[in-house]
């Protein structure tokens, strides 16, 4: 059962014109749920694109516009960050792939308008990881604010650099060399990702993932190793990407499914399509389902996953919560970590994280 406010939000995201029938009293819970899902600015962008903002009553419209401004500013900052990364790394031989939200923005994809994001994620070949860290260090990015445990955790188990913070701008840069940690149970080959990546127009040596890989990365992040705090937002990204790529290339679905099996990522793609269709009516041809059927979980597991994802993907707001929402989120959290690393590493890590979070909880903002 979808709460009314969530129903309104999903309808507004897929058929923006439907907002015309909303009452002022509908907008109140709708905006609160949208905000919890980080989708308020996205909704603003959709309504603006379609010239529907004027149909929104003044008070909710002000909130939408305010969210739109926050997003616009983040986009401005993000473009500058990409420019700075380009200055630091563009002249080298090693390619730099821009990932996730920043890639949507730089490649001008339809899920970018109103998309909120914080950090910049890039991927470089493993062999170039060390020289990348040095080149970034020279431009003011350093690994800071992480204790020794975190540093070891990243470098040893994730084979990744810890997040880098720019000393002056305080912006955070995540440098990856693959899209899943090497300890994870799925192991897509990064060389294939680099080989298929598309150059970003107007930039030397900056790339974005090929369409199929971009979808697979997003799906993997959401349904395999990610935490679902912005689950619905990420599902909306996937929905927009799928619609966009399928419309522009009639061979897209076939490439996508073939690539999913090739990269060992068919299961997360299966989930992405299943819940995309369920929540956002993503138009997926039946043939695609048929082709993905080997990746479909066995029925008992699928029943469990349905129970978890149908709850976990809803915005984390009490209006959307049912009695089992908290439990579902907790199960998904543990699952995401379990899929990321072997149990012998996972248990001590979760315990440490739990203790640290409790301590951090005691250091909340002291004062408004």
């Amino acid at each position, binding site marked *: 059962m979808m709460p009314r406010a969530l129903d309104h939000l999903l309808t507004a995201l897929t058929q923006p014109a439907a907002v015309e029938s909303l*009452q*002022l*009293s509908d*907008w*109140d819970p709708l905006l*609160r749920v949208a*905000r*919890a899902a980080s989708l308020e600015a996205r909704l603003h962008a959709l309504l603006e694109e379609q010239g529907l903002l004027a149909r929104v*009553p003044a*008070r*909710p419209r*002000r*909130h939408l*516009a*305010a969210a739109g*401004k*926050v997003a*616009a*500013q983040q986009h*401005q900052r993000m473009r500058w960050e990409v420019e700075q990364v380009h200055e630091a790394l563009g002249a080298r031989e090693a390619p730099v792939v821009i990932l996730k939200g920043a890639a949507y923005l730089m490649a001008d994809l339809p899920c970018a308008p109103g998309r909120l994001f914080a950090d910049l994620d890039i991927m470089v070949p493993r062999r170039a990881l060390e020289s990348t860290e040095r080149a970034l260090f020279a431009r003011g990015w350093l690994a800071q604010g992480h204790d020794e445990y975190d540093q070891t955790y990243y470098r040893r188990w994730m084979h990744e650099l810890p997040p880098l913070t720019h000393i002056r701008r305080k912006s955070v840069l995540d440098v990856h060399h693959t899209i899943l940690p090497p300890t994870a149970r799925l192991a897509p080959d990064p060389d294939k990702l680099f080989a298929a990546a598309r150059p970003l127009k107007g930039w030397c040596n900056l790339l974005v993932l090929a369409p199929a890989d971009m979808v697979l990365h997003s799906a993997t992040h959401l349904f395999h190793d990610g935490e679902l705090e912005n689950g619905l937002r990420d599902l909306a990204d996937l929905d927009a990407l799928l619609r966009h790529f399928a419309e522009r290339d009639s061979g897209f679905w076939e490439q996508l499914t073939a690539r999913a099996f090739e990269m060992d990522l068919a299961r997360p793609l299966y989930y992405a399509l299943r819940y995309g269709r369920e929540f956002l009516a993503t138009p997926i041809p039946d043939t695609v389902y048929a082709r993905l059927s080997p990746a479909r979980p066995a029925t008992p597991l699928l029943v469990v996953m349905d129970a978890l994802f149908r709850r976990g993907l809803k915005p984390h*707001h*009490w209006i959307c919560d049912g009695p089992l929402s908290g439990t579902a989120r907790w199960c998904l959290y543990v699952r995401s970590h379990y899929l990321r690393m072997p149990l012998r590493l996972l248990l001590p890590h979760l315990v440490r994280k739990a203790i640290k979070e409790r301590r951090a909880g005691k250091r*909340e*903002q*002291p*004062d*408004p």
Partner: protein
Amino acid sequence: MAVAVSADLPRILRTQGAPLEIGPFIVRLSSRLPAIAESIGLHYTEQLLPADTPFSDFHVRLDRAPGVRGVWRPQARFYLDGSSPFKPLPLSQAFPLFEWGLNWCIAQHGHHYLMIHAAVAARDDQALIMPGAPGAGKSTLVAALALSGWRLLSDEFALLSLENGLLTPLPRPVSLKNQAIPLIRERFPEAVVGRSAHETTKGTVAHMKPPSASLARAQAPARPAWLVFPRFAPGGDDTLREMPKAHALLTLADAAFNYSVLGGQGFEAAAELVDRCACAQLDYADLDRSLSALNALPDAP
């Protein structure tokens, strides 16, 4: 369309929440705390809207913090739409916590304005904006101005419209701190000042209710005329010294909550404001002397 305050207020606060019309914002406040009901009854009665108001900008709840600690050290927590962004404070500070929490809500969401951390008062709809760090004396000065014929627009926020450059009032209780409390009480016996909360992070705090004349014109914008940067300077001479506009603009940018969110639009609005206003610094030491300096500000052309 304020409703007459009723004995019902505590019940409304406990159940569906009381919608308060605070300048351009509607805040639906719920609370089971008697201290909140008392303070809302004192400060906000004119701003109470009917309970079935269809849309609220902020859904705020103030209640006892859960946990066993509450048995021997009861604390109040501020919730914005179910999430609690701040540490709890002692129960006796529940009302200041509401006011501080509301500042945070507005600063996080009111991006249709350039929001400047400043006290604002108006004379004949010409506004005086006083940005200032905590302790600069802006609350004391604005309280005194509001009690001497000026209209109170705000104690904490200058809400500058990005469309027309006018200031929107946000009349709320003025937060008086420490020595300012007896100072205002003695100098202006007619001031309505609520209960003092002691040992807050800002020392002793008491809130002064905005004069009714200011509340009655809560929807009437004012045109910015003077930008005065007060700074508490014991031994200062309470005179206004002209401030270079470029410096005023940089200080103003620092004092704006959402300057970085608004980007170029925020810069343009701030630059226009500085350009249009007379800009001055005030070394504030003595209330009466500073008050006469401000009263003597020449009308804008």
